[in-house]
């Protein structure tokens, strides 16, 4: 079968913040650049980011990138690579000012500077007191950012392929990445994008969990494609959770609800937080509340048919107070839980929010893999940035407002590195004859299979397995069972069947293809989480508790290392954490406490 070939200098997969930022570098350097996206760029999930972007501009009070670096290393529970973290924090001011020049409508101080506000975990003078470091555009920072960068790309003649789904990486015999196969959704036509540089900016994969704050689009497509091309995935056991998402829906319920007197209850209506945090009770910190909720569910005191959520009760509060102080909550309850929270408690569950791991990259944005004892062997022609990549700056736990910074800095850095490599004269490498075979075979198998697995049911089985076995608080026995279960789900995910066989706008096929990506991420997460026998950052195990020898359950003697999950044989290797920054002294190991 003859497959059309489109030739570009660079192809970028994903048009969220990281993809758009990369594209600016490439297009403005005069390179012919294509950006592929499943949706119109300003519908990427970056839109949902409200908090802001961290930069030590010092507009409101004294600040310094070394303080930001310290906070990020500490936030990462020392799993972040300190060279990458220094790189990001030093670049922060530059990328924020550039964004302002692109037309980003940042909030301003009275004297016209970018207004900055405080955000959890960001401190001055190496952890001394909170500092105002977050730059925002009201509560629509991500949205404003995408618009500014999209316009800049239009000006720079970036070519957008909207409602196109990338299918697989194309690598030649020597392992160089030379493009992707992609499907135009409107026609179902598969096309080869033959490129000299391929940049992944495909976002996270939060939809592997049953309860997730992520939009449906976050299906880990880049990670799935990388895994199928034999690229390992780094630190996939680390996922950030929020304690109170609406069970099933994932929509966040603000912590303010507990602040106003909301009480968490189990299936016996017991106020269980009294047992876990006798003083703070329902107002204990996020991790304590999340762990308590997970323990109640694990021990069979959850609610509902599946006993898989607890209740957030505000029925004892004055309805007028609820409507006045928590205006959105009543609506969220009705809309997403089918519950009138003035009369009944809301079903809630710790909810997945952000993926710290991803495709392993150097801080230059180049994808790196272990080879012949070198953990940082560059995969020629392949770059990644944003949530799909792991540089690693977030390590075991991300600080708020560092995600938008990540996508700006590493989107730009991936773009710059690609420009540098291409200007050095790298030509298009020959396409192998079978360049599109893998993608075509996957589509044909889904289209032609009879008696296969249902996509919706398989996705649900995966999401429930992940939620129950690798949630916010993890138990050794549950993780072991989880590995077995997810490998069973994987079998189904390899045998998907769809009823609609149409070529044009076949959304069932698109969802099946997304499911093949999700399962790669789910499997990597479960196996990596089972293997890491310590608690660190967002990975908290019941069997690695807080002791004098291992404060917070963190064991630096054995586990100060990055996980590399190999999708080829489901095996795990580890690579050292880079504790050496670029120009300053190492942020020395210590117990993470706030």
């Amino acid at each position: 079968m003859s497959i059309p070939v489109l030739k570009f200098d660079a192809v970028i997969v994903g048009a969220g913040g990281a993809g758009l930022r990369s594209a600016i570098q490439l297009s403005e350097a005069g390179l012919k650049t294509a950006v592929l996206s499943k949706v119109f760029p300003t519908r990427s999930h970056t839109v949902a980011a409200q908090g802001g972007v961290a930069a030590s501009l010092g507009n409101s009070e004294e600040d310094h990138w070394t303080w930001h670096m310290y906070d990020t290393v500490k936030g990462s529970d020392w799993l972040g690579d300190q060279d990458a973290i220094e790189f990001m924090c030093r670049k922060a001011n530059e990328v924020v000012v550039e964004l302002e020049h692109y037309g980003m409508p940042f909030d301003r101080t009275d004297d016209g500077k970018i207004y900055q506000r405080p955000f959890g975990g960001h401190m001055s003078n190496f952890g001394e007191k909170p500092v105002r470091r977050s730059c925002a555009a009201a509560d629509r920072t991500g949205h404003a950012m995408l618009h500014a960068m999209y316009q800049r790309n239009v000006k720079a003649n970036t070519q957008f392929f909207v409602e196109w789904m990338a299918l697989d990486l194309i690598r030649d015999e020597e392992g160089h990445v030379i493009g992707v196969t992609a499907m135009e959704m409107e026609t179902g036509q598969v096309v080869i994008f033959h490129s000299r540089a391929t940049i992944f900016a495909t976002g996270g994969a939060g939809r592997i969990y049953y309860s997730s704050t992520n939009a449906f689009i976050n299906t880990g497509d880049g990670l799935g494609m990388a895994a199928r091309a034999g690229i390992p995935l780094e630190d996939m056991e680390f996922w950030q959770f929020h304690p109170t998402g609406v069970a099933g829906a994932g929509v966040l319920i603000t912590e303010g609800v507990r602040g106003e007197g909301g009480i968490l209850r189990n299936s016996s209506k017991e106020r269980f937080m009294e047992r876990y945090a006798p003083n703070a009770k329902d107002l204990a910190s996020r991790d304590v509340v999340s762990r308590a909720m997970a323990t109640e569910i694990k021990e069979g005191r959850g609610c509902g048919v599946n006993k898989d959520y607890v209740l957030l009760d505000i029925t004892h509060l004055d309805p007028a107070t609820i409507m006045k102080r928590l205006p959105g909550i009543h609506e969220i309850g009705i809309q997403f839980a089918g519950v009138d929270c003035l009369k009944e408690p809301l079903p809630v569950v710790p909810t997945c929010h952000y993926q710290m791991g991803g495709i392993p990259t150097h801080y230059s944005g180049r994808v790196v893999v272990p080879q012949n004892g070198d953990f940082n062997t560059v995969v020629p022609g392949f770059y990644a940035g944003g949530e799909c990549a792991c540089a690693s700056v977030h390590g075991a736990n991300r600080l708020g407002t560092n995600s938008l910074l990540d996508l700006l800095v590493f989107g730009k850095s991936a773009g710059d590195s690609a420009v540098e490599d291409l200007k050095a004269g790298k030509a298009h490498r020959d396409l192998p004859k079978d360049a599109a075979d893998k993608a075509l075979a996957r589509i044909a198998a889904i289209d032609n299979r009879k008696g296969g697995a249902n996509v919706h049911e398989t996705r649900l089985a995966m999401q429930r397995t992940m939620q129950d076995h690798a949630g916010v608080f993890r138990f050794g026995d549950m993780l072991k069972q989880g590995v077995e279960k997810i490998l069973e789900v994987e079998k189904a995910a390899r045998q998907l069947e769809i009823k609609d066989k149409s070529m044009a706008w076949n959304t069932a096929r698109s969802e099946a293809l997304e499911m093949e990506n999700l399962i790669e991420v789910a499997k990597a997460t479960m196996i990596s989480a089972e293997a890491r026998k310590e608690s660190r950052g967002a990975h908290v195990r019941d069997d690695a508790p807080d002791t004098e020898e291992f404060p917070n359950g963190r064991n630096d003697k054995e586990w100060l290392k990055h996980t590399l999950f190999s999708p080829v044989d489901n095996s795990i290797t580890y690579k050292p954490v880079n504790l050496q920054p670029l120009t300053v002294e190492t942020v020395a190991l210590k117990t993470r406490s706030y």
Partner: protein
Amino acid sequence: MERKDYERLRWRCIRRALLELDITLTRFLDDGFSSLDEVQQQAFVALADLEDYDLWDLITGKAEIDDPVMSEVVAMLRKSRVRLAE
């Protein structure tokens, strides 16, 4: 509505930037869309083309829209939420 047009609309409803809209619009497509007449269906297509925050503000009543048919469909989206909740 022809299959191809419906499937395009479906994709634009189930792959939004905001989770709240993914859920709300998917439910409406499955539950309320088939009861719309042709003019209302076109109004829904136009609503689905709005920016995410603009559409969410309409659905949550923080904003209003002048077009009478679109306004009618927004009212159905709001009503649909309550009915689904019961």
